[in-house]
């Protein structure tokens, strides 16, 4: 007994050995996690975390909504007080109505998008958390394998105040029983084959660290006009065709001088995204089979 505790004390007191053991343990954990060996444990642990996060997220969004609305109301009160003080009585009712109206607008956008696209099936999901690490741009939705969600499914959302009905949010990269993680198009690791809607010129839309989008690999002779919609081309088999990614805001010559790059602004505000639609009947195409060397006949 004494020997055991003495041994424990001695190897803990050897700081270098303790550090090496801890680092090796962590490295093993990272490798196992990347290989998917820890997936069952991770899924099990994230279930309660996601459940509590969902509640917190809802509360924080409501509070932040009300805070911004409160400042609006204060400004209005300042103006209205000069003209009609009685109107102040209706302020609280106005706040409630605005809340209902904004919820209605968001849901109406989603509904109009789902009815406009005939050949796609959707599952509506709430955003319950955003990525812990600011370098990564992913969100967590409250739908998982129990709702038929699978890795690779595209995610879209309604666009408020625009003629465009829906815009691309990203792609499901991980699923647990009751939640799924979506890599946003704005993530630096995201690359989507895209084309300009007007002249069908093709390129690749990549996310940037700052949360913006860039359309790369546009030919030198391509006519690019600011305001043109950028849509998915379907090349690569990861996304269906013709989903709106964003709008060209500006363009420039690439540093290499071999192609043009367009700055693209997404029509979706990812910071305030509350609902999203997961396209459930789209099967991503696995092209990796064609990348393997073909045996000689």
């Amino acid at each position, binding site marked *: 007994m004494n020997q055991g505790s003495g041994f424990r004390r001695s190897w803990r007191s050897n700081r270098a050995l303790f550090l090496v053991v801890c680092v090796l343990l962590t490295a093993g954990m990272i490798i196992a996690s990347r290989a998917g060996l820890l997936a069952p444990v991770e899924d099990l642990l994230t279930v309660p975390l996601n459940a509590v996060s969902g509640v917190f997220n809802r509360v924080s969004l409501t509070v932040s909504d009300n805070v911004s609305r409160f400042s609006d109301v204060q400004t209005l009160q300042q103006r209205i007080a000069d003209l009609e003080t009685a109107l102040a009585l209706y302020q609280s009712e106005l706040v409630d109505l605005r809340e209902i109206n904004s919820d209605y607008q968001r849901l109406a956008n989603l509904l109009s998008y789902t009815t406009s696209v005939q050949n796609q099936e959707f599952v509506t999901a709430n955003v319950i958390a955003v990525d*812990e690490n600011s370098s990564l741009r*992913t969100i967590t939705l409250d739908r998982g394998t129990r709702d038929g969600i699978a890795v690779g499914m595209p995610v879209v959302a309604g666009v408020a105040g625009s003629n465009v009905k829906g815009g691309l949010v990203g792609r499901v990269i991980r699923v647990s029983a009751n939640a799924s993680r979506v890599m946003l198009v704005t993530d630096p690791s995201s690359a989507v084959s895209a084309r300009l809607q007007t002249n069908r010129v093709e390129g690749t839309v990549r996310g940037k660290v700052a949360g913006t989008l860039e359309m790369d690999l546009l030919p030198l002779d391509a006519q690019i006009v600011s305001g043109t919609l950028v849509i998915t081309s379907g090349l690569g088999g990861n996304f269906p065709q013709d989903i709106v990614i964003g709008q060209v805001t500006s363009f420039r010559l690439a540093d290499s001088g071999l192609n043009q790059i367009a700055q693209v602004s997404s029509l979706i505000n990812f910071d305030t995204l509350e609902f999203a639609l997961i396209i459930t009947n789209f099967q991503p195409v696995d092209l990796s089979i064609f990348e393997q060397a073909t045996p000689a006949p």
Partner: protein
Amino acid sequence: MGTYWSLPLIIFAVILQATVLPQIRIFGGQPDLVFLMMLSWAIHGRLEQNVIWAFVGGIAQDLMSAAPTGASVLGMLLLAFGIEQIQRQVYRIGFMLIIALVIMGTLLQKLVFMVVLAFSGFAVYPLENLTYVILPTIAYNLLFIGPIYWLIRRLQRRIQRRSTSKQHALTL
């Protein structure tokens, strides 16, 4: 005893970080509560406790992220050992040293995290990350270290007092 407190506190911090704090993001930076709690605990805590805080905090953070589990642990582990080394060199860790630890610690934590991400196949842009994520995070961490250090120090003192009185009772 202090290690038992780490789990609920860190889980609360992780949930706050994934839900409430994104509302106050400046560029890509937001306060790193788990890191600050670990650092505050490590300044007066024992190495074994600090290592447990680093593991629990890092794993909890990674569970709420697309990063592989353990990616956030590595930086915090190095920091825990670094702080312990500093503790042995100086009489006490004062205000200026805490500020320096927050700056250097955030930098170390983020850089190690980026290296792990790069090795895991994620696209990493160091320069953009530095200006867009790391510098705002350092600013936020400097702002938040005061209240978090105060809170953790109070908790540590209370735990120490309780364990001392228990030992007294046992010797009597």
